[in-house]
């Protein structure tokens, strides 16, 4: 069975991120000038406008800023997953990223819930970062 959901449209800004994901490393950009940790990737710092940037590995923990529970599949590939959760997660390092919350009942998700990363290896080329409720020590 092929993977029926949309895959990332990789561009120059996001390529290092997706390469990191394939190795199960959640990479975010850090401005070499002002130190801002940022997401989504961009070639210029929104705070100081520097184009000097390095990639650092986030540890993959955060909190749910907000979430939405899909009861309707706007893309056919998601039909079998209904209801599923799309969330904005605030990483402990600061940046906020859109993702899925998996591994729990959608009704149990709440804002500020502590979550940790779980990798979905969807193809030879792509692993997609998703999050689940934080397990074990906080």
């Amino acid at each position, binding site marked *: 069975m092929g993977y029926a*959901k949309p895959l990332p449209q990789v561009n120059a800004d996001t390529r290092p991120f997706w390469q990191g994901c394939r190795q199960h490393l959640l990479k975010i950009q850090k401005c070499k000038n002002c130190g801002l940790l940022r997401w989504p990737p961009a070639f210029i710092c929104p705070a100081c406008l520097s184009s000097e940037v390095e990639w650092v590995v986030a540890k993959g923990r955060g909190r749910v800023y*907000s979430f*939405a529970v899909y*009861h309707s599949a706007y893309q056919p590939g998601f039909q079998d997953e209904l209801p*599923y959760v799309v969330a904005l997660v605030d990483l402990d390092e600061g940046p906020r*990223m859109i993702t899925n919350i998996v591994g729990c009942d959608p009704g149990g998700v709440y804002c500020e819930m502590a979550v940790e990363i779980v990798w979905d290896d969807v193809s030879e080329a792509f692993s997609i970062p998703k999050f689940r409720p934080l397990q074990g020590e906080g």
Partner: protein
Amino acid sequence: MLHAVGALESGTCKYVLISYGHSARSGDSMLRMLSDMTGDEAIYGHFGAAGGYALAAQRAMHEFNTGPDTWKHIAVGQRAWANLNPRAMMYDRRLTDDDYRAAKWLIEPFRLFDNCLVSDGGRACILTSVERARDLKHPLVTIMGLGQHNPSGDLQKADYLAGPTGAKIAGEAAFSMAGISREAVDACQIYDCFTYTVEITLQDYGYFEPGGGKDWFMGGAIEPGGRMPVNTSGGLLSEAYHMGLTPLTEGVMQLMGRCGPRQLGPETNTKTPEIMLCSDNGGILQTHACCIFRRL
């Protein structure tokens, strides 16, 4: 609107047509536009405006305890206006609190009736100078105040999903230009892609404190006969989706007295309007425009 005023004031032109038309219901271009807007977020099953506004609304539920008990007043209240508007898509369909509650979830926390319509059709308005407009057949409606604020480009950098949105600064600018307070406004036409959008916009304009909407909307406040009529055509939720032109043209037509059975005034047991507040949004609360009109 701001560009139109600039073009008129600079003498670049004498008339400006602002128009919108779309075969969104019978064609697939709206769906394609929303898919394009989603971008790489589609890999998570995120979709378009409904997904983004659902995230905003859920955060608002967390921050100031809003939710369906507030939004039902907006959906039901606007439907009551649409039931007076023969051109509204929902003209002949009643909506009760129970109907609202019984409707299916689409993207929770939004039920079916929290979402706007998808429509075929269009709207237009023409701007010209006050001097020229005095000689035309319709009553004169002028622009008292304009304001815009565009806080972000990316949903993942949006800290204002639960307010203050761009409506706060845009509203302050428009009221300042108009030289009036919000108490002087007789009725509002608020961009209502979702019920929550109406709440957060009026909240950011200062009509109630965060979470105060639950009480403010009660008792049919925005309906025919209410103390602050809102979206008197039925709005995007119950009349038709023509982007910001739905609220804008309704505001002007109400001030001109061209609204038939839904006309504000004695017919609908409301105040005959002199001052109208209109709003428009873009993206997921990423851009905002506020406009205050006055009948001379």
